[in-house]
């Protein structure tokens, strides 16, 4: 009996000890659909894969996938809601408090990813040209994200209301450790612009005219100059804007050219868009079943059998077109809530299932930027030339030589309105000039001094970070 006891005891002890000692090795499970952070940054392919995320974020419906294009139109006077918009853009139409773009949560993760690329691309081995192209894209995207946020959350330099000069938070290093996620105040508007300019200049240096195999679907040298010219325009740095626009036209990709009067409508249905300097490509697998009908530009802006049809053109926009403008023909009409309304055909879903590519920067915008920059510098002839180039490709007459000064500028602004509607410019075009935001009939004008001109920072961020200042009024 005693021996039995001992045996059992020995077996139990051994079992338990085994169970105990083997724990250290046994208790290890590796995730399969994620990578340890250390492994993700060691080779070029992985760092390059982060750039996919940048473009994927840019496609989001809260950004260029939808809201960045529609909200600035409805917040101003180009578009308004249909009789049955299903709650969409109802608050934007009346500029209700908090009804604005909300980019903070979408774009800072993207900026962090860009920072991961910028900080690590030089550490991995690959051909220098590939590394330059990758870094250039990351810098371009970071600049675009920063500028889109800055124009949403801040005033333009020199146009501050009550001297409120807060820009946005600047992040240039990757958050690879929790200690890096420190509290930072909003940088001054000028400092943000300085970084954006530096990024874009460096991107323009690093980027090739065409990133191999990517066409206009990834950032390129021409796109970097184009965005740089837009950024200068917002700061009213006219000479620099003119130069950057010229550089953009010089370095545009071979596939990019102005559409003509006869190809204008078709240009929106071509892949890539004929005028695209930078265009976001969309593919079927990127959307779930209902994304198309729920959130696509096509579903929201056009009247189709299954679509949502949430926004329509305002009478004010339609009245801005001159007689003979081919762009006026890029609208269709339908009965809506008892009356005939017009909707744009810019997003024809030519890729099927509500799919469109999204043009982020078009060549015509670059011409318009240069025209405006030149007109502001009283380079009337050059400005008229740029505008005439565009107008003759839209079925309109050349700009008379007599049109100078304010008249020329007004013509340029109207040209911007009819050329770039539904591409996310209208609200910002008014704002960057310090103008009140005009609204369609029946909706009160939003004064430039109204606090609702600026979007609110996420309330949670303001209560979390004592260094950060909320925009006035919120």
């Amino acid at each position, binding site marked *: 009996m005693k021996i039995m006891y001992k045996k059992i005891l020995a077996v139990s002890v051994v079992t338990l000890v085994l*169970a105990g000692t083997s724990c250290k090795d046994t208790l290890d499970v590796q995730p399969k659909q994620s990578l*340890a952070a250390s492994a993700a940054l060691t080779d070029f392919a992985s760092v390059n894969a982060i750039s996919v995320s940048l*473009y*994927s974020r840019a496609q989001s419906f809260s950004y260029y996938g939808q809201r960045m294009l529609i909200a600035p139109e409805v917040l101003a006077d180009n578009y308004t809601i249909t009789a049955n918009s299903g709650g969409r853009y109802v608050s934007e139409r*009346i500029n209700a408090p908090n009804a604005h773009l909300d980019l903070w949560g979408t774009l800072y993760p993207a900026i962090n990813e860009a920072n991961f690329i910028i900080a690590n691309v030089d550490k991995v081995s690959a051909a220098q040209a590939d590394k330059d192209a990758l870094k250039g894209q990351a810098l371009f995207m970071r600049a675009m994200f920063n500028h889109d946020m800055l124009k949403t959350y801040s005033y333009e330099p020199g146009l501050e209301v009550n001297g409120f000069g807060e820009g946005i938070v600047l992040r240039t290093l990757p958050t690879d450790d*929790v200690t890096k996620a420190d509290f930072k105040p909003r940088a001054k508007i000028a400092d943000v612009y300085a970084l954006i300019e530096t990024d874009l200049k460096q991107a323009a240096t690093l980027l090739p005219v065409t990133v191999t195999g990517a066409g206009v679907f990834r950032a390129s040298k021409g796109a970097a100059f184009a965005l740089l010219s837009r950024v200068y325009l917002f700061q009213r740095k006219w000479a620099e804007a003119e130069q950057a626009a010229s550089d953009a036209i010089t370095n545009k990709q071979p596939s990019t050219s102005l559409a003509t009067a006869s190809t204008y409508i078709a240009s929106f249905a071509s892949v890539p868009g004929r005028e695209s300097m930078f265009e976001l490509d969309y593919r079927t697998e990127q959307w779930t079943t209902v994304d198309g009908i729920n959130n696509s530009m096509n579903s929201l802006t056009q009247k189709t059998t299954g679509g949502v049809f949430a926004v329509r053109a305002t009478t004010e926009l339609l009245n801005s077109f001159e007689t003979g403008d081919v762009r006026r023909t890029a609208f269709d009409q339908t009965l809506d809530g008892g009356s005939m309304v017009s909707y744009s055909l810019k997003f024809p879903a030519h890729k099927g299932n509500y799919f469109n590519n999204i043009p982020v920067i078009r060549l015509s915008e670059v011409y318009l930027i240069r025209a405006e920059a030149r007109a502001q510098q009283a380079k009337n002839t050059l400005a008229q030339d740029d505008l005439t180039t565009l107008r003759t490709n839209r079925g309109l007459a050349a700009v008379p030589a007599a049109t100078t000064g304010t008249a020329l500028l007004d013509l340029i602004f109207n040209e911007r309105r009819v050329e770039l509607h539904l591409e996310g410019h209208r609200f910002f075009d008014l704002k960057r000039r310090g103008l009140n935001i005009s609204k369609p009939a029946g909706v009160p004008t939003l004064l430039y001094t109204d606090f609702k001109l600026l979007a609110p920072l996420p309330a949670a961020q303001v209560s979390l970070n004592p260094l950060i200042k909320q925009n006035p009024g919120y």
Partner: protein
Amino acid sequence: MKRKLLAFLLLGFFAFSNAIAQNKTITGRVVGADDGLPLPGVSVRVKGGAVGTSTNVDGNFSLSVPLDSKVLTFTYIGYLTQSITLGSAGSVNVRLVSDSQQIAEVVVTGYGVAQKRDLGSASVRVTGKQIENLPIQSFDRALQGRAAGVQVTSQSGQPGGAINVRVRGVGSINAGNDPLYIVDGVQIKTGGISGQASSNTLGSINPNDIDNIEVLKDAAASAIYGAAAANGVVLITTKKGKNGATAVNFSAQQGVIQNVSRYDVMNAQQYAQFKVPGAVNAGTSESSATAFFGNPANSTAPSTNWFDAVTREGQSRIYDLSFAGGDSKTNFFISGSYTDQNAQVIESFYKRGTFRGNVGHKVNDKLSVNANISLTASKVFGSIADGASVNSPFYYPFTLRPDVPIYQADGTYTQGADLKASFPYNIVQGAKEEVRLGNALQTVSNFSATYKVTPSLSITGFSGIDFVDTRDDNQRPASIPAFAANGGTSSVVNTRNLDWNSNVAANWNKKFGFHTLAALVGGEYKEQNVESASATGQAFPNPFFRSLQNATPLSIAGFFTGYKKAGLFSKLNYDFKEKYYLSGTMRYDGSSRFGAEKRYGLFGGISGTWRISGEDFLADNKVISDLKLRASYGVVGNDQISDFASRALFGAGGSYLGSNGIRPTQLGNANLSWEQAATTNVGVDYGFLGNRITGSIDVYRRINSNLLLSRPLVSDSGFGSINENIGKVQNEGIEFGLNTINLDTKSGFKWSSDFNISFQRNKVLELIGGQDRIGTSYFVGQPIDIIFTYGWAGVNPADGRPMWYDVNGHYTYNLVAATDPKIQGTRYPKFFGGFNNTVSYKNLSLDFLFQYQYGNKSFVSMYQTIWNSGYTDDNQIVSQIAEQWLAPGQITAVPRALRNTPHLNNSGALSNAITTGSTRYLFDASYIRLKNITLSYNLPASIASKVKLRNIRVFATGINVLTFTKYPGLDPEAPIGVNEIGNNPQARTYTGGLQIGL
């Protein structure tokens, strides 16, 4: 050997000497009063004499007694001792009544059983008898109202839908709050198993197979489960066969499932009457408003009731067959069941077949083996979705305009813009044509062997498996225009969940005079892997083709998660004279979920008990029959954090131009570990008047610390948060259970009641870095689940404008997000519980359970959509027509109707919209519900035996029969932490059935 011989001889002598005396022989049969089954081994003795025997396998006995014997006593464990006065007849048939008090004495604890009277910790039990034949799909529903301290809320009224069970409140903010479920020793995964329909993994256990459910509530009881025990432990023990004749039980029931909760929304004319003035008030001309909303004067306008079109009276059928029996070496329990329920939403159903085989066998005196094997196949067709989505039957139909027909004149579904809806989706077509099917195969099985080394030492090896294999089908045919552009989409998700645990434990106990010592030592290993693969295809040739081989591949996806844990445990119990008890438990646990720097932890608990009624001074007390005072303290862990929460990760980062991206998804924290719960419990178990009144009172305080919180990071860092162990929450409460036999008359009338009530208080003690709040969700000093919103100040009687309260409690039309919202209440009830009554007269029995909670609030988000004075074009609650503000001086809660635009503030700018979340939409969700009522009749044994049956019982049961509440939402039973919108409410079920025993 010599001694044995001597004893034998002596016995023989007594037998002989008895035989010489004047004797008579009494024969008879002893059966259980509840089930009519023969009871073997019942001790039969002559009162006051030495003569005795016991019943055989068939419950029969034969005893030769002295002629002058007057009374026979029948004693059997778990039954009330019965004395029968002997008449002239030579045969006695006895029906022993089970003693629920005594039965409850054996309590399942971790890795063993204990005598209830020995137990120093808090636990509560529900027996299989209490939940027998209820038309429920999973046993967790049956805990509702029956177990003090256990709060059960329904996430979905879909049959088989998910349930929330909370033992003693909510101790964690971000880690799980589900208790640990252990079925016959197998630790099983909780939660939903289908991505297509709400379905509860616990549905794999047929409730009728359950012998008892034991809920371990305090840390001393659950400490043996260490890092997994913080939310309490629910031990489920399935039935076993008994030594004796095989008992066959068959039951069949059938009934209806009815929807009882709906919002009273407008018909077409009411809609026009309400909406047209609202549009006119907003500046639309009357003619175009009428063109869009209809003519208010048209009383014959065709009207659609969308909700009626997607709901129906469902049906319930349940069949159950079991065999239980055994002999002295082997026992078995075999059962099968089939459930078929059509739910309140059209097309939805729940079908389940279960099989179980439980076998125990004694190989010899030393070795015994045991196996419990279950197989379950279930099929759930979802009510297409819950929540605020256009395919949710409890949301969208209430919002759809009543002036829009379901079908066009040509018989096709109304589509697109003709629906005049926020999203062009015809929900009737969706409900009929979309497929959301969840298929599951499950087994929870185990095998164990126990070797008795010596009478006081045994070793048990145990291995258990929890396996779930699911297949989810989702089909969205092209006949629905929303999916037409894709040419229809189908997806299939296959998921395999393999979860196994094994342990070795040695049990030792020994009595030394008045001292009893018992010890348990063991080790355990557990592993869980979940892996899934899914495929989606689209562009079908036509809507009738739906399987993937006819589709163009769209996407494939995979998923894996898993963890491993290992632990060593030990327990020591000591008692002195069965009056003073001490118990201590320790467990050393490690888990792969925890960060590299903090992977292992030590957990433990101690308890002490004084059985006062065992003292001499209470020995003959007529009033106090049982009294026990217990106290315990323990520290356990909550390991329900996500499997890779501690790692720095790069995960999937979208796709672009045909390439897949990666992005940083999580910041690492090597110190991330379990949450810790320390519970102090003091309790009294009492029994008065011969245990006619029994119950327990428990007072506890549980402090959860090292709470896993997502510490918010400034989002400009690119991360929203990091997981850290910070924060502290306290739960304290009093639980009171009272079981009484109110009446027990000689005429056969009996009334007994079980009442329980739990008072609970939850409070956040500490948050991140000494801060007093996290955003608008958590506040130090407040319960975890608060409702933080604006105060609603009502409608300005002068002009019908909505008003709110600002931070200073003054009226305002424009709210300031930073300062004006306040904590307006909590979703926790102040108290909750149940009140069960059983009234029986002879063979007729009525059992009814009221279940209640009080003091909890619920935010009815749905009202922001359908009770907003016509701000949106959704259909609206009818009462607003009568209650809307129309004239100055009118005092009402419904502002002047105004479409699509807020009212103006005093300076002519826009005020806040009526739909702004505020206390306008906050309601008291206290309720009392007649949860179950069952009327049953046992046919007299004489009739049953004529048709050669042991018993026949007919019964009728109702579930959710009546609800008393002021709550305007669909179901006050919505789970904690959820705003009510589109919730699938509990249905009312009536079934009738027949149970036959052979």
